[in-house]
């Protein structure tokens, strides 16, 4: 019917989508877009070439974590925090008073542009950072347009899930090479940046040059199969240790009449159980087996994982709203008790606990260990060492670049320092109060201290929850146990820009996976798609990767 086209913005329909999908479905579970590029910009940088541009690593010795990072885990801080003994990691402010415009994605309601938190941060940094906090759900569109104009902000923050299509090409042509400021010993001017692990820096090399300021991430899988520990304990359910046991337990739990289903969509866990190569970023899906590179969709494990997930759906143990995909939110169904198991980013471990603490005192969430499908040890694949990057406009003056790095040096301050507290909690008394030695955000803190400054650069992966130190401990221990089973695929840690013509080649698999597990398509359709993929460019892409491997060497070993 036509009258509803009356809105002045006919085009708004054409772009609103991601938004709506994200409002209901949350962020993409795993960022499904890999890198791409065009012309001579494709490829990667590793080995000696990378060594030339990488900043020197100088471990920070200001604060020692209670659980050191191991097997690709985060570092854990589990003892009581002593706010009185916060260390100083930035003894004198390095900024020289430039004004810096920063465009960054933001989820939620941004605070007013002049507020006590931003002023306090800018004062410590010594520069005037002006945040252009953009709606995270339409960031794709805004980013694509802004990068095409000749009038860009000084700094642009780009998460890896927004690096689809031609964005990598833009990163290479529009952003400054930070090598002259950070490579080798130069980084020592910014001690907190020097403490960022080299893995993360290496991943910030785009087109042969160090361009990004990374937000480091643990390389162990981020997807945890969560379960309702309180309900499991009460009902006496035992944690499954094989794919078969999981299915049996799920059938046992499901009671549709009482509006209880065993689980939400478990596809990503199935991939982990069956040892499927990482689907996070495309280069990670390639691995050298007996001298031949294979892609994740070509493996038997991939089909087995899909077949098993398909069984879950067919058995009716998956919540119907999960079958309808964009409907509601798995975490919500979990806390409501409509599903007892779901898989989600590890941050939900603390997130759901904190959310439910005042609501449901009995609520307990826990992550189960990922098991091998046959009951043996699982085979897991490492993820990317960094997920979000800040880039500096190549037209920026030296003074501006210097001040951005000065700001990053503050935001990358490690846990236990005054700068970390300021970045993550704001000003004591204004944004948080201390209760029994634990900082608690005030209303003002909840409105102002959100994801702005943390997007600039972060310290090495850290897990610390002063309110729930036990959860922090469980999380790190889980990561370390899983890390022990984690291997690195051939292109681990390399920032790879695929040739433009292959960028979208593998994009349709995720959709097909969802069709197959929900029973709308057959496994044989997937096999057909894989053979089409090979003939339509998959084979050539394999050759391209093989050459890359021969030229650069592998990350393995």
């Amino acid at each position: 019917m036509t009258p509803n086209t009356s809105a002045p913005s006919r085009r708004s329909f054409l772009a609103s989508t991601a938004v709506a999908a994200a409002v209901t479905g949350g962020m993409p579970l795993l960022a499904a877009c890999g890198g791409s590029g065009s012309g001579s910009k494709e490829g990667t940088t590793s080995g000696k070439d990378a060594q030339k541009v990488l900043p020197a690593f100088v471990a920070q010795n200001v604060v020692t974590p209670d659980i050191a990072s191991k097997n690709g885990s985060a570092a854990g801080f589990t003892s009581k925090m002593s706010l009185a003994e916060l260390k100083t990691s930035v003894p004198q402010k390095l900024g020289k008073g430039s004004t810096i415009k920063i465009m960054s994605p933001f989820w939620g309601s941004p605070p007013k542009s002049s507020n006590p938190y931003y002023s306090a941060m800018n004062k410590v940094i010594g520069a005037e950072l002006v945040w252009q906090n953009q709606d995270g759900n339409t960031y794709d569109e805004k980013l694509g347009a802004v990068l095409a104009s000749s009038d860009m902000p000084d700094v642009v923050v780009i998460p890896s899930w927004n690096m689809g299509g031609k964005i990598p090409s833009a990163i290479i042509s529009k952003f400054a090479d930070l090598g002259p400021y950070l490579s080798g010993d130069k980084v020592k001017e910014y001690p907190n940046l020097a403490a960022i692990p080299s893995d993360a820096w290496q991943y910030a090399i785009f087109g042969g040059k160090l361009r990004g300021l990374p937000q480091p991430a643990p390389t162990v899988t981020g997807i945890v199969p969560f379960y309702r520990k309180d309900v499991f304990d009460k009902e006496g359910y035992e944690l499954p240790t094989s794919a078969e046991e999981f299915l049996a337990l799920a059938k046992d739990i499901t009671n549709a009449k009482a509006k209880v289903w065993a689980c939400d969509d478990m596809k990503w866990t199935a991939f982990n159980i069956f040892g499927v190569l990482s689907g996070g970023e495309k280069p990670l899906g390639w691995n050298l087996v007996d001298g031949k590179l294979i892609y994740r969709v070509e493996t038997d494990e991939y089909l087995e994982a899909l077949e098993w997930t398909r069984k879950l759906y067919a058995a009716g143990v998956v919540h119907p709203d999960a079958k309808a995909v964009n409907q509601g939110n798995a975490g919500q169904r979990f806390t409501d008790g409509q599903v007892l198991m779901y898989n989600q980013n590890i941050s939900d471990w603390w997130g759901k606990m904190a959310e439910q603490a005042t609501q449901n005192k009995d609520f307990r969430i826990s992550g189960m260990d990922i098991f091998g499908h046959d009951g043996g040890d699982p085979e897991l694949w490492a993820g990317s060492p960094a997920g979000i990057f800040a880039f500096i406009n190549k037209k920026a003056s030296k003074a501006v670049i210097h001040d951005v790095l000065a700001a990053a040096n503050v935001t990358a301050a490690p846990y236990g320092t005054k700068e970390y507290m300021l970045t993550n909690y704001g000003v004591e008394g204004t944004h948080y109060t201390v209760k029994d030695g634990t900082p608690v955000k005030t209303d003002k803190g909840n409105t102002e201290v959100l994801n702005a400054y943390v997007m600039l650069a972060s310290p090495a992966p850290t897990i610390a929850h002063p309110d729930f130190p036990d959860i922090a401990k469980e999380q790190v221990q889980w990561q370390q146990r899983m890390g022990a089973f984690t291997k690195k695929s051939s292109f681990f840690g390399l920032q790879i820009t695929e040739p433009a013509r292959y960028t979208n080649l593998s994009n349709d698999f995720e959709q097909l996976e969802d069709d197959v597990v929900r029973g709308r398509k057959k496994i044989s359709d997937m096999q057909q798609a894989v053979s089409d993929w090979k003939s339509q460019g998959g084979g050539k892409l394999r050759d391209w990767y093989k050459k890359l491997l021969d030229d650069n060497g592998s990350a393995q070993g």
Partner: protein
Amino acid sequence: MSAVTEERPKAPGRWAAPPRPVWEEQPTKAGLASKGIVLAGACLGVLFPLWIVVVTSLSSKQTISEAGGLVVVPKDITFIAYQELLSGGQVTRASIVSLCVTLVGTLFSMTVSVLAAYGLSRIGSVGHRWMLMALLATMFFGAGLIPTYLLVQSLGLTDTYLALILPSAISVFNILVLRAFFMGISQELIDSARIDGAGDWWILWKIVIPLSRAVIAVITLFYAVGYWSAWFNASIYLSDQDMMPLQNVMIQLVQKQEPPVGLGQAIKTGQLSGLAVQMAVMVMALLPVAVLSPFVQRHFKKGMLTGAVKG
């Protein structure tokens, strides 16, 4: 020249039924009943979901959690979701922005559209067909986001409120509807005015517009609703959060309740449910309708524009 007269039914009370014309037969009972059933059914089909939405917006997190989603039967009433929306002062500022953009934008759009619709309403006038085709084609051929953004930026409109009005100021659909109604006006009336020496401005102002009040009300509503509910242009063309109109602030407030994975630091614990906030936003979005509806309906009274044929 005959003056245009309006015959407003002079009913004793606003809601009293006008007297049934003598020539109209009494309605049959079956007819009345079936009409009633259809109308009541349609209204119930709308009101039941609306009830769910309102009740959910007024429910606590506990109640929503127990219901496992939207709440049908209210258990406790809390205004916490509305408090959350109205706290922080952003909504007040954003409402003023939206109101101004809607007022100015609608006035501008209506002026341009009414003029264009009249300008195109005389078949065979010079350039009529080409101009019509030029407008019509834009309904089918759109431009990509990047060229549009670059244009708006090079005109210096980014980060100004004009960017929320100018790029999408006219809807060709609305112009075509206006034009169709204008062309339906009795030509004798216009011709006689013309013979008396009236120009096009006079005819538009004194004859066409007064006789087209119903459709002008409708199209004004279309434009106003369009401006009020638009958010995409603001999200692309504005960078300063302090300038954002209401819709964008509302969208962000909903997202705030469900931060994306990995950025969970903003989680606000307590009694508030994200679903309730989402529903509260929807309820508030219905407010303009409640305000505008009577305004439009005044223009829908049967036979109020009878002057046209008497001319």
